[in-house]
């Protein structure tokens, strides 16, 4: 019995991206996700009440900031025209509430209250107002699972915003984010902002990820060791946005 079930589990793990396994996963999530939504609402009631008060205070501040941003946006359009830049479409995003934050050792996922019914598909980028959060990995009718940026098996093509140096952002076992495969002679400084490079079918170019906090250049290595601190507080997220139009949008 044990041998058979372990073999079956191993088979499932090896065929994780097959349509059949994704179908099973989405349906199990679909059935139990709705129940989880209700349990999540109960546990979040108090938090929502406090959050509501906080949001009211912040609304006044954001209204002011919004007017400044509108000005910046109009200025941006003018400058783009001047430079002959092709006008690019903005993201189409939908807001989502995090029902649960699931940290299980190296694995980190969020359960969202949006799903197929809201237009969410697999492999869509998930952002917060601070930056990149992760990507959708399983989507059911009204819920979706998001793999977080600090999940050990998460990878994203990234670059330094200032110098356009590219690399791959990977979490380490200790939970830090490393920008890997950046040549040793590249121009990278502490404080540089790291953004998505757009070399991906999933992430649009230019989404902010984090800031460089430490750089090591061992003389015997080919690549730098660059530590990145994410802008998003991944442990205390409550709301996110799912980007429905993926690809090179920015």
């Amino acid at each position: 019995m044990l041998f058979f079930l372990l073999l079956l589990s191993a088979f499932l793990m090896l065929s994780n991206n097959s349509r059949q396994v994704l179908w099973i996963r989405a349906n199990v999530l679909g059935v139990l996700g709705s129940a989880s939504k209700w349990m999540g609402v109960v546990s979040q009631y108090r938090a929502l009440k406090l959050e509501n008060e906080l949001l009211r205070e912040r609304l006044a501040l954001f209204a002011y900031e919004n007017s400044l941003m509108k000005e910046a946006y109009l200025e941006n359009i003018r400058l783009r025209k001047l430079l002959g830049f092709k006008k690019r479409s903005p993201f189409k995003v939908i807001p989502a509430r995090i029902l649960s934050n699931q940290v299980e050792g190296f694995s980190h996922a969020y359960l969202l209250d949006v799903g197929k019914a809201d237009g969410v598909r697999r492999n869509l980028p998930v952002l917060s107002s601070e930056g990149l959060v992760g990507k959708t990995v399983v989507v059911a009718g009204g819920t979706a699972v998001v793999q977080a940026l600090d999940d050990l098996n998460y990878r994203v093509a990234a670059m330094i915003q200032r110098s356009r140096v590219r690399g791959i952002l990977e979490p380490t076992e200790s939970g830090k984010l490393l920008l890997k495969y950046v040549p040793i002679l590249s121009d990278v400084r502490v404080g540089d902002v790291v953004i998505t490079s757009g070399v991906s079918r999933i992430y649009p170019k230019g989404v902010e990820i984090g800031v460089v906090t430490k750089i090591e250049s061992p003389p015997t290595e080919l690549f730098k060791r660059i530590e990145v601190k994410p802008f998003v507080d991944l442990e205390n997220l409550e709301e996110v946005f799912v980007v429905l139009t993926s690809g090179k949008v920015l």
Partner: protein
Amino acid sequence: MKPFGWAIGFILVVLLEVAFAGFMTVYGIRPDFILLYLIPFSLEFSRAKGTAGGFAVGLIQDAFGASLFGLNAFCKAFAGFLVHVIPSRFLGPRFLHAGSLIFFVTLFHDFFYNWIYSLGTGANVIFIFFRYALPGAAYTAMLGLLIKAIFPGYLRVKRAE
């Protein structure tokens, strides 16, 4: 309790884990409610049923996570099996049996889970053991003992085989 009652319990405990375990996470370590339910289930029934129960509940849990589909099923099937094979002499004095059993089963479960999930990433097994498996096992065992203190009928370590 009848098998149907246990099955409903499994679904409820997965939902409980998904909805509330996040609030009890300390430095990335969370208690495993599902194991706290699976261990008495496995003790109540047989080794084979414990293994099958672990597989089924693990599969449901996998649907909610971003990890490999089948990984929790693998580890929980192993955990359900392990309940019956850990020799009693490893469990220490009789009054500690329940806590020790939860501790060892969770230790194996968390170690294998994180080790398999990190394959190919270069993660250090000693790091996995001390950073995740050991604290996770201690946390879950303490919670199990707390449940036992409140409900003395919980987890009577009396192997079915």
